[in-house]
Structures are given as C-alpha cells and as structure tokens.
C-alpha cells in the first residue's frame, strides 16, 4: 500500500479531530472550508516526518491545532462576554440544552485555554497537554483547573436563568 493510501485511510479514521477543532475555532463558513483543506495539506506535508512516536490521532490533533492557530482567519471566534440578559439556548423540546451551553462556554475561553480544555475533555492527560501546547506540566495543570472553573461558573449562571 502506498504512503498516500495509508495517509488517506488514517485521516479518514481520524477526520473527527479536524472537524471538531475547526468548529471550535472558526465561525466563517469560507474559513472553515479553506482550513479543512489546509489542515489536510499540512498534515500530508508533515506526514513524512511522522515517526509514530505518538498515536496518529495525537499527531493529527497537534497539526490541526497548529494549522488553525497559525491561519489568517477572516473572523475569529470571539471570546467576548455574552450580555447579562442573555437567554441560554434550549433544545428542540424547549428544555435547556446543556451540551450546547458547554460549547458556548468553551468558545468564550481564550484560544489557548480552549486548546487545553478540549484536549482534556478528549482524554489527554496533563503531560500530553503540556507536550502538545509547549507549556510546562504545572502551568498546564493550573491553566486547565482555572479554565474548567470558569466553564463551570458560567454554566451555573446560565442554569440559574434558564426556564
């Protein structure tokens, strides 16, 4: 099997990583399309250097994050606060949609805390998070704790105003 064929199969198996990271960082549909292609291209360009020291999924996560955060995006996902009188989103049944809130809360973090939290939620331990971000382990741990607290606080506030 050719190197390209192997790459294509690995990417197909891990396509969720690319899709997820782009959804978290980019709102503009055109940017999303461009970035999707750019991540695939950059992953292919770097694939030759991939030695298999880490899982392919971890390596792809790293390339995707690097590509997204070094791309010249037309519109970044803003991290500004929502207004005080903001109505939290509800699901189709009219009940509060907590996973939707989680997404909104994550998107309100700064871009680096967003990386740390999503890696954590995807099951990476603090050492792996430090390796991917370049932070030292202690700093990554402290940052993760603070970011999670910020998310929980936000969710509690929204739960308080939800129907």
């Amino acid at each position, binding site marked *: 099997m050719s190197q*390209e064929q192997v*790459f*294509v199969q690995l*990417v*197909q198996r891990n*396509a*969720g990583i*690319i*899709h*997820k990271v782009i*959804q*978290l960082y980019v709102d503009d549909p055109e940017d999303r399309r*461009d970035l*999707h*292609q*750019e991540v*695939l*291209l*950059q992953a*292919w*360009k*770097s694939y030759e*250097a*991939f030695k298999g020291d880490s899982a392919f999924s971890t*390596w792809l996560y*790293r*390339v995707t*994050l*690097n*590509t997204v*955060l*070094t*791309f*010249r*995006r037309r519109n*970044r996902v803003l991290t500004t606060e929502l207004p005080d009188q903001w109505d939290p989103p509800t699901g189709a049944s009219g009940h509060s949609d*907590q*996973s*939707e809130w*989680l*997404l909104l809360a994550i998107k309100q973090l*700064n*871009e*680096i*805390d967003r*990386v740390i939290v999503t890696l954590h*939620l*995807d099951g990476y331990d603090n050492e792996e998070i430090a*390796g*991917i*971000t*370049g*932070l030292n382990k202690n700093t990554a741990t402290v940052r993760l704790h603070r970011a*999670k607290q910020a*998310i*929980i606080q936000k*969710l509690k506030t929204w*739960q308080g105003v939800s129907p």
Partner: protein
Amino acid sequence: MDLQQEWQLLQEKQLSAPVLPEADIRLAIRKDSQGPIAALQKALRWRLLFVSLFLLFGILLTAYSWHNPELRLLMAVFDAYYLIGMVLSIRQFRLLQRSASLDNNLRLTLTTYYRVIKNAIRTDEIVGLFMYPIALVLGFLYANVEAGDTLIQVLTNSRNLMILLVMILVFSPIFHIFVRWANRKAFSTYLIQLKQNIDLLQ
C-alpha cells in the same frame, strides 16, 4: 453537570465529522497552501522574478556599455546590488520553507511563525526602500552618461542633483510607505493574533 458526559453528547450531536471522501483528501493534498507562509513565499517569488529581471537587464546593459569605464562602474554597482538582493531573497525563501513545519508544539510553532513573518515583512520594507529608488537613480545616471556627459559632469550639475534629490526624497518614501501599508493591511491583525496567543503560552 458532568463536563465529560456533556462533551461526549456534544461530539455526537454537533462535532462529529461527516464522512470524508477519499477523493476530497487526495484533492486537498494537491492544492496550494493558503497559509501565511505560502502567501509570503508567493510575494517573495514575485520579488525574485523582478530582481532576476533587473539583474538580467543589468548584465545585458553592462555588456553593451563595456567600452565606457564610467558606465561599466555604474552597471557594476547596479549588478552587485541586485545580485545581493537575489541571494538574500533566495535565502529568505529557504528560511520560510524550513519554518513551515506544523508538527512541533504549539508554542514553538506560533513563536517561529511570528519571528519569521516579522523578519520577512521587515526585509520586504527595507527592499522596498532601496530597490526601486536605486534602480531609478542608476537609470538616470546611465542615461546621462550614455548621452555623452561624464559621471562627474552629471553629478556636479545642479539641475541633475536636484532631480536625483527629488527622486530619492520622493520615490523612496512613496515605495516604503506603499510596502508598509500593504504589509500592514495583510498582516497586522494576524501578527496581533499570534502575539496574543504566544503571550498566553508563556
């Protein structure tokens, strides 16, 4: 609320990827990059083309004016200047190529991009400040010497000196301001974005 559980739900509902067709992947890996390094490389390719054309023109003109020592001197300055420009541009191109790797850690990647892009912009502005005005000045001197004056005569004529001064004082800032404006338009927000994230990773 259990964050991990909600995250799983979120992934199933909103963040799960549609099937990625093999043809789309194969097409994407054959496209040109749209990243900032690729944009700078594209601009650099244009600069290299201009510098090469100027140099080729200079070499032809040097051969044509070989009989006149003054013209030969002017053309030697011109050729040397553009040769240095060409070597620097090739060096910068290779530097950009080397820094394009995206499988390092995030902090290293962002820092490298920030440094390399800032350097590329600074070089571009310096080149913009000198490349075109020097070509104009040397062209003006060449035309006068070719018309029969000696270099000393051209440089001691107050009218000529005035023209040269205007060329330097007007065209240099114009080219410089234009290049700065273009770079600022293309990269200032981007560099701020990089810097913010680098600071957050300290």
